């Protein structure tokens, strides 16, 4: 079942459609995300498994001979809506599905760092602060004042740039409204090819409703992610439908 067909659970159901045919894998979203959310620059020990990556871009290789050779897959928290795997497992309500926006919230200040949510997440969208985040001397001046840096020993993840939602909410409140409407997360703003469309799945006139046929990764798990993808390339659809990786009998390039 597509996220577009579901009945509304929350007043807003923010989500994304990412056009994989437009993504060139430049990584602007990755850096913009890190800068926006006060992610510290990688220390020497940091790699793709122990760093803080709220948004990652995976490189996918076309296993079939036809079509484009490579696709780049930006992946952040998929904001699962049904049986959200990380929400049910957290022992102390540090993870919740927001009642207003449908965003899966992660509260670093409540988190005790058990990492159960990380094992529960099928998309590996969560990062753990293995050590204290640190910036070179003086670089604290470049921290975003609307985002609290996380401390060591807690899990963090994409929250659709909550600080920007807050700013939109504040601006709306000046005019007596609580509804922030559509705002722009950092990755959406940074994407040079406009591959990411951000919107509200509840809005029948919105950008997401007009995004045409979309698919999600690991739909079989039934978690109804609100971040969905679009592509005209068949091999990507086929790959997304298949759960679990099969070991390559031999390397994919012959």
């Amino acid at each position: 079942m597509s996220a577009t067909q579901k009945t509304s659970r929350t007043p807003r159901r923010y989500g994304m459609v990412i056009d994989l045919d437009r993504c060139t894998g430049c990584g602007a979203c990755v850096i913009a995300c890190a800068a926006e959310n006060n992610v510290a620059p990688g220390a020497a020990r940091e790699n793709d498994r122990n760093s803080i990556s709220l948004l990652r871009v995976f490189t996918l290789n076309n296993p079939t001979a036809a079509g484009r050779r490579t696709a780049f897959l930006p992946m952040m928290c998929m904001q699962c809506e049904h049986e959200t795997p990380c929400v049910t497992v957290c022992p102390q309500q540090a993870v919740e599905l927001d009642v207003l926006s449908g965003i899966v919230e992660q509260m670093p200040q409540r988190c005790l760092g058990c990492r159960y949510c990380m094992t529960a997440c099928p998309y590996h969208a969560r990062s753990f602060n293995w050590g204290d985040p640190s910036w070179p001397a003086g670089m604290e001046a470049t921290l975003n004042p609307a985002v609290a840096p996380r401390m060591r020993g807690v899990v963090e993840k994409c929250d659709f740039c909550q600080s920007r939602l807050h700013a939109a909410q504040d601006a709306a409140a000046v005019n007596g409204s609580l509804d922030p409407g559509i705002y722009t997360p950092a990755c959406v703003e940074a994407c040079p090819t406009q591959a990411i469309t951000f919107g509200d799945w509840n809005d029948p006139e919105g950008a997401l409703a007009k995004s045409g046929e979309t698919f999600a990764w690991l739909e079989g798990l039934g978690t109804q992610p609100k971040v969905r993808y679009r592509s005209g390339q068949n091999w990507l659809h086929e790959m997304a439908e298949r759960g679990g990786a099969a070991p390559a009998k031999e390397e994919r390039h012959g």
Partner: protein
Amino acid sequence: MRVLIAFLLGLAGSLAFGWWGFPQLLYQREPQPLQYNHKIHIEKGSMECSSCHEVAADGQFAGIPRTASCGACHAEPLGKTEAEKILVTSYVAPERELDWKVYSRQPMNVRFSHAVHVNKAAMKCEECHGGRGSATAAEPFYRNRVTGESRNVWGPRMIRVGLKPGEGMKMSDCESCHEQKGVSAGCLGCHR
């Protein structure tokens, strides 16, 4: 009998320490940079809270005013008090910012939207800040040595009952008000 006396002695000793000595140890008194009189600004200056603590058109809350906005009126001393002289000579003239200790300062991870509470919910400043806006002098500021936060966040007494507005600003205080008014903000509504 002697055991009982010893027991009571121990009991009394640790109760006394816990309820009287411990708070003395826990909090550190810090001076405000200036004796500020809210009342005189409201009465003589016929100002409102929002004259200095304003919500901007884009919803940002200015918080504590910058020295420049004090200087708008206080370019020259407006009275003969010592504080007035200090303000003009030490801050306004050299364009130095005042290092106010903010009683209601919340930790970094708390997001409080004045725009939502003042503009949308039409709440009065006193509902959270109490009578601070009509005080004639800056009351002492106490910093919790463990958390580094203002004592007003927890409240003046160890036991958190009978708190007046402006005294307790812990998450549970926010929550109980939100519950009363039937508005839920979720976690990220108030955290960042």
